[in-house]
Protein backbone atom coordinates (compact mmCIF):
# COMPACT_ATOMS: atom_id res chain seq x y z
CA UNK A 1 0.00 0.00 0.00
CA UNK A 2 1.29 3.46 -0.93
CA UNK A 3 2.02 5.76 2.03
CA UNK A 4 -0.14 8.89 1.92
CA UNK A 5 1.62 12.21 1.69
CA UNK A 6 0.74 15.13 3.96
CA UNK A 7 -1.19 16.76 1.09
CA UNK A 8 -3.12 13.49 0.52
CA UNK A 9 -4.13 13.38 4.20
CA UNK A 10 -5.22 17.03 4.20
CA UNK A 11 -7.16 16.36 0.98
CA UNK A 12 -8.90 13.34 2.54
CA UNK A 13 -9.83 15.34 5.65
CA UNK A 14 -11.15 18.40 3.81
CA UNK A 15 -13.08 16.32 1.26
CA UNK A 16 -14.61 14.28 4.13
CA UNK A 17 -15.82 17.54 5.72
CA UNK A 18 -17.19 18.76 2.35
CA UNK A 19 -19.00 15.47 1.71
CA UNK A 20 -20.54 15.64 5.16
CA UNK A 21 -22.16 18.92 4.15
CA UNK A 22 -19.48 21.32 5.37
CA UNK A 23 -19.48 20.29 9.04
CA UNK A 24 -18.48 17.03 10.71
CA UNK A 25 -17.99 15.53 14.18
CA UNK A 26 -14.42 14.58 15.18
CA UNK A 27 -15.15 10.84 15.51
CA UNK A 28 -16.69 10.72 12.03
CA UNK A 29 -13.70 12.60 10.62
CA UNK A 30 -11.32 10.23 12.41
CA UNK A 31 -13.04 7.29 10.74
CA UNK A 32 -13.23 8.97 7.31
CA UNK A 33 -9.64 10.22 7.24
CA UNK A 34 -8.21 6.92 8.51
CA UNK A 35 -5.81 8.49 11.01
CA UNK A 36 -4.81 7.87 14.61
CA UNK A 37 -6.31 10.20 17.21
CA UNK A 38 -3.00 11.97 17.90
CA UNK A 39 -2.21 12.43 14.22
CA UNK A 40 -5.66 13.82 13.56
CA UNK A 41 -5.25 16.28 16.44
CA UNK A 42 -1.97 17.49 14.90
CA UNK A 43 -3.54 17.93 11.46
CA UNK A 44 -6.63 19.65 12.87
CA UNK A 45 -4.45 22.15 14.76
CA UNK A 46 -2.51 22.85 11.55
CA UNK A 47 -5.64 23.23 9.41
CA UNK A 48 -7.23 25.47 12.04
CA UNK A 49 -4.10 27.62 12.18
CA UNK A 50 -4.14 28.07 8.40
CA UNK A 51 -7.86 28.97 8.49
CA UNK A 52 -8.87 26.04 6.31
CA UNK A 53 -11.23 24.72 8.98
CA UNK A 54 -13.11 26.12 11.93
CA UNK A 55 -13.47 24.20 15.18
CA UNK A 56 -16.57 25.14 17.16
CA UNK A 57 -18.13 23.75 20.33
CA UNK A 58 -21.92 23.36 20.19
CA UNK A 59 -23.85 21.70 23.05
CA UNK A 60 -20.54 20.59 24.60
CA UNK A 61 -19.67 18.80 21.36
CA UNK A 62 -16.93 19.67 18.92
CA UNK A 63 -17.90 20.45 15.34
CA UNK A 64 -15.36 20.86 12.57
CA UNK A 65 -16.46 22.96 9.63
CA UNK A 66 -14.68 23.90 6.43
CA UNK A 67 -14.08 27.60 5.77
CA UNK A 68 -14.32 29.46 2.43
CA UNK A 69 -10.53 29.36 2.28
CA UNK A 70 -10.77 25.59 2.81
CA UNK A 71 -13.27 25.24 -0.06
CA UNK A 72 -10.95 27.26 -2.30
CA UNK A 73 -7.96 25.13 -1.24
CA UNK A 74 -9.85 21.92 -2.08
CA UNK A 75 -10.84 23.24 -5.53
CA UNK A 76 -7.23 24.28 -6.27
CA UNK A 77 -5.90 20.96 -4.98
CA UNK A 78 -8.42 19.11 -7.14
CA UNK A 79 -7.04 20.95 -10.19
CA UNK A 80 -3.48 20.13 -9.17
CA UNK A 81 -4.36 16.45 -8.71
CA UNK A 82 -6.08 16.38 -12.12
CA UNK A 83 -3.01 17.96 -13.61
CA UNK A 84 -0.70 15.42 -11.93
CA UNK A 85 -2.82 12.53 -13.18
CA UNK A 86 -2.84 13.89 -16.73
CA UNK A 87 0.87 14.61 -17.08
CA UNK A 88 1.81 11.46 -15.20
CA UNK A 89 3.33 12.93 -12.06
CA UNK A 90 3.19 11.16 -8.72
Amino acid sequence: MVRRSKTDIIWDMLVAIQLAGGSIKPTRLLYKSNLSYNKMKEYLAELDESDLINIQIKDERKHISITDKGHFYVSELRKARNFARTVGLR
Partner: protein
Amino acid sequence: MHLTTEVIFSFNFIINILVSFMALTVAYYSYRAHKIAGTYDFGYFSLGFLSLSTAFIVNAFSMIIWAMTASHIPGTLTGYTYFASTLLFRFFMMLGLILILFATKNLSQDLKGRLTIYLFMLVIVLSLTSGFLFYITSVILLLVIAEHYFVRTLKKKNNMSLYLLIAMILLLFGIVRFFFIIPYFCMIQPMLFFISFLIVGIVVIKSYKQ
Protein backbone atom coordinates in the same frame (compact mmCIF):
# COMPACT_ATOMS: atom_id res chain seq x y z
CA MET B 1 6.96 32.02 -52.70
CA HIS B 2 10.73 32.22 -52.84
CA LEU B 3 12.25 31.31 -49.52
CA THR B 4 15.13 33.59 -48.70
CA THR B 5 17.27 33.03 -45.61
CA GLU B 6 15.72 36.17 -44.07
CA VAL B 7 12.22 34.72 -44.50
CA ILE B 8 13.28 31.41 -42.96
CA PHE B 9 14.97 33.09 -39.98
CA SER B 10 12.03 35.47 -39.42
CA PHE B 11 9.60 32.56 -39.54
CA ASN B 12 11.78 30.59 -37.11
CA PHE B 13 11.97 33.62 -34.80
CA ILE B 14 8.17 33.95 -34.57
CA ILE B 15 7.63 30.22 -34.07
CA ASN B 16 10.36 30.05 -31.39
CA ILE B 17 8.75 32.94 -29.50
CA LEU B 18 5.35 31.19 -29.66
CA VAL B 19 6.88 27.89 -28.49
CA SER B 20 8.62 29.71 -25.64
CA PHE B 21 5.34 31.33 -24.61
CA MET B 22 3.57 27.95 -24.59
CA ALA B 23 6.36 26.36 -22.53
CA LEU B 24 6.05 29.27 -20.12
CA THR B 25 2.29 28.65 -19.83
CA VAL B 26 2.92 25.00 -18.91
CA ALA B 27 5.58 26.13 -16.40
CA TYR B 28 3.08 28.57 -14.84
CA TYR B 29 0.37 25.93 -14.37
CA SER B 30 2.90 23.45 -12.92
CA TYR B 31 4.12 26.14 -10.54
CA ARG B 32 0.54 26.82 -9.44
CA ALA B 33 0.12 23.11 -8.74
CA HIS B 34 3.45 23.05 -6.90
CA LYS B 35 2.42 25.99 -4.75
CA ILE B 36 -0.84 24.38 -3.69
CA ALA B 37 0.30 20.73 -3.37
CA GLY B 38 3.89 21.39 -2.31
CA THR B 39 5.14 18.34 -4.22
CA TYR B 40 8.64 18.46 -5.69
CA ASP B 41 7.54 16.77 -8.93
CA PHE B 42 5.41 19.77 -9.87
CA GLY B 43 8.40 21.99 -9.12
CA TYR B 44 10.72 19.91 -11.33
CA PHE B 45 8.11 19.90 -14.10
CA SER B 46 7.68 23.66 -13.84
CA LEU B 47 11.42 24.34 -13.83
CA GLY B 48 11.82 21.93 -16.75
CA PHE B 49 9.38 23.86 -18.92
CA LEU B 50 10.82 27.17 -17.74
CA SER B 51 14.21 25.95 -18.89
CA LEU B 52 12.76 24.85 -22.26
CA SER B 53 11.11 28.25 -22.60
CA THR B 54 14.49 29.94 -22.00
CA ALA B 55 16.11 27.64 -24.58
CA PHE B 56 13.58 28.71 -27.23
CA ILE B 57 13.94 32.40 -26.32
CA VAL B 58 17.71 32.04 -26.82
CA ASN B 59 17.08 30.25 -30.11
CA ALA B 60 14.66 32.98 -31.23
CA PHE B 61 17.15 35.76 -30.60
CA SER B 62 19.95 33.87 -32.31
CA MET B 63 17.62 33.85 -35.35
CA ILE B 64 17.65 37.67 -35.33
CA ILE B 65 21.45 37.61 -35.43
CA TRP B 66 21.36 35.11 -38.27
CA ALA B 67 18.83 37.22 -40.17
CA MET B 68 20.94 40.35 -39.66
CA THR B 69 24.01 38.52 -40.88
CA ALA B 70 22.10 37.21 -43.88
CA SER B 71 21.07 40.81 -44.65
CA HIS B 72 24.72 41.90 -44.32
CA ILE B 73 24.02 44.31 -41.47
CA PRO B 74 27.44 45.28 -40.15
CA GLY B 75 28.50 44.99 -36.53
CA THR B 76 26.99 41.60 -35.75
CA LEU B 77 29.32 39.35 -33.81
CA THR B 78 28.11 36.24 -35.58
CA GLY B 79 30.89 33.87 -34.58
CA TYR B 80 30.75 34.56 -30.85
CA THR B 81 26.98 35.00 -30.82
CA TYR B 82 26.46 31.71 -32.62
CA PHE B 83 28.76 29.91 -30.17
CA ALA B 84 27.14 31.50 -27.10
CA SER B 85 23.57 30.97 -28.30
CA THR B 86 24.24 27.35 -29.27
CA LEU B 87 25.81 26.67 -25.89
CA LEU B 88 22.93 28.31 -24.01
CA PHE B 89 20.29 26.61 -26.18
CA ARG B 90 21.86 23.19 -25.57
CA PHE B 91 22.27 23.82 -21.85
CA PHE B 92 18.68 24.95 -21.23
CA MET B 93 17.24 22.27 -23.53
CA MET B 94 19.18 19.52 -21.72
CA LEU B 95 18.33 20.92 -18.30
CA GLY B 96 14.66 21.16 -19.25
CA LEU B 97 14.45 17.63 -20.57
CA ILE B 98 16.28 16.16 -17.59
CA LEU B 99 14.02 18.00 -15.12
CA ILE B 100 10.91 16.75 -16.95
CA LEU B 101 12.39 13.26 -16.80
CA PHE B 102 12.98 13.59 -13.03
CA ALA B 103 9.41 14.75 -12.57
CA THR B 104 7.78 12.01 -14.62
CA LYS B 105 10.07 9.10 -13.74
CA ASN B 106 10.76 7.97 -10.20
CA LEU B 107 14.52 8.41 -10.59
CA SER B 108 15.66 10.20 -7.46
CA GLN B 109 14.42 7.61 -4.97
CA ASP B 110 17.16 5.00 -4.77
CA LEU B 111 20.88 4.63 -5.38
CA LYS B 112 20.28 3.41 -8.92
CA GLY B 113 18.37 6.60 -9.57
CA ARG B 114 21.16 8.75 -8.14
CA LEU B 115 23.75 7.01 -10.31
CA THR B 116 21.57 7.63 -13.34
CA ILE B 117 21.43 11.32 -12.39
CA TYR B 118 25.24 11.56 -12.21
CA LEU B 119 25.53 9.80 -15.56
CA PHE B 120 23.04 12.19 -17.14
CA MET B 121 24.86 15.19 -15.66
CA LEU B 122 28.10 13.95 -17.17
CA VAL B 123 26.47 13.50 -20.56
CA ILE B 124 24.94 17.01 -20.33
CA VAL B 125 28.33 18.59 -19.74
CA LEU B 126 29.85 16.58 -22.60
CA SER B 127 26.96 17.31 -24.94
CA LEU B 128 27.48 21.05 -24.51
CA THR B 129 30.72 20.71 -26.41
CA SER B 130 29.63 18.20 -29.03
CA GLY B 131 26.61 18.80 -31.23
CA PHE B 132 26.26 15.15 -32.16
CA LEU B 133 26.27 14.07 -28.50
CA PHE B 134 23.68 16.75 -27.73
CA TYR B 135 21.27 15.40 -30.34
CA ILE B 136 21.85 11.80 -29.32
CA THR B 137 21.29 12.63 -25.61
CA SER B 138 18.18 14.68 -26.37
CA VAL B 139 16.78 11.83 -28.45
CA ILE B 140 17.44 9.33 -25.63
CA LEU B 141 15.89 11.61 -23.00
CA LEU B 142 12.83 12.22 -25.18
CA LEU B 143 12.53 8.50 -25.90
CA VAL B 144 12.48 7.76 -22.15
CA ILE B 145 9.85 10.48 -21.56
CA ALA B 146 7.82 9.22 -24.53
CA GLU B 147 8.05 5.67 -23.17
CA HIS B 148 6.57 6.93 -19.89
CA TYR B 149 3.53 8.31 -21.74
CA PHE B 150 3.32 5.22 -23.93
CA VAL B 151 3.09 2.99 -20.82
CA ARG B 152 0.52 5.35 -19.27
CA THR B 153 -1.54 5.32 -22.48
CA LEU B 154 -1.63 1.52 -22.42
CA LYS B 155 -2.27 1.23 -18.67
CA LYS B 156 -4.74 4.06 -18.11
CA LYS B 157 -6.36 4.02 -21.58
CA ASN B 158 -6.16 7.77 -21.26
CA ASN B 159 -6.49 10.09 -24.29
CA MET B 160 -4.49 12.84 -22.58
CA SER B 161 -1.47 10.54 -22.18
CA LEU B 162 -1.80 9.64 -25.87
CA TYR B 163 -1.74 13.33 -26.84
CA LEU B 164 1.33 13.87 -24.65
CA LEU B 165 2.97 10.84 -26.26
CA ILE B 166 2.29 12.32 -29.71
CA ALA B 167 3.69 15.68 -28.52
CA MET B 168 6.89 14.03 -27.28
CA ILE B 169 7.31 12.11 -30.55
CA LEU B 170 6.87 15.35 -32.55
CA LEU B 171 9.44 17.05 -30.30
CA LEU B 172 11.72 14.08 -30.86
CA PHE B 173 11.45 14.48 -34.66
CA GLY B 174 12.01 18.22 -34.24
CA ILE B 175 15.15 17.68 -32.19
CA VAL B 176 16.70 15.42 -34.81
CA ARG B 177 17.80 18.54 -36.62
CA PHE B 178 20.27 16.93 -38.92
CA PHE B 179 17.33 15.59 -40.97
CA PHE B 180 16.14 19.13 -41.65
CA ILE B 181 19.15 21.03 -42.94
CA ILE B 182 17.75 21.38 -46.48
CA PRO B 183 16.30 24.97 -46.70
CA TYR B 184 12.64 23.99 -47.17
CA PHE B 185 12.82 21.51 -44.33
CA CYS B 186 14.27 24.21 -42.04
CA MET B 187 10.70 25.36 -41.57
CA ILE B 188 9.46 21.90 -40.62
CA GLN B 189 11.54 21.73 -37.44
CA PRO B 190 10.02 24.82 -35.75
CA MET B 191 6.57 23.71 -36.90
CA LEU B 192 7.11 20.34 -35.19
CA PHE B 193 8.17 22.15 -32.01
CA PHE B 194 5.15 24.43 -32.32
CA ILE B 195 2.62 21.60 -32.74
CA SER B 196 4.28 19.61 -29.95
CA PHE B 197 4.16 22.47 -27.43
CA LEU B 198 0.68 23.45 -28.56
CA ILE B 199 -0.55 19.93 -27.72
CA VAL B 200 1.22 19.97 -24.33
CA GLY B 201 -0.18 23.44 -23.59
CA ILE B 202 -3.75 22.47 -24.49
CA VAL B 203 -3.56 19.22 -22.49
CA VAL B 204 -2.18 21.01 -19.42
CA ILE B 205 -4.71 23.87 -19.54
CA LYS B 206 -7.58 21.42 -20.16
CA SER B 207 -6.54 19.18 -17.27
CA TYR B 208 -6.20 22.19 -14.98
CA LYS B 209 -9.58 23.66 -15.91
CA GLN B 210 -11.48 20.36 -15.48
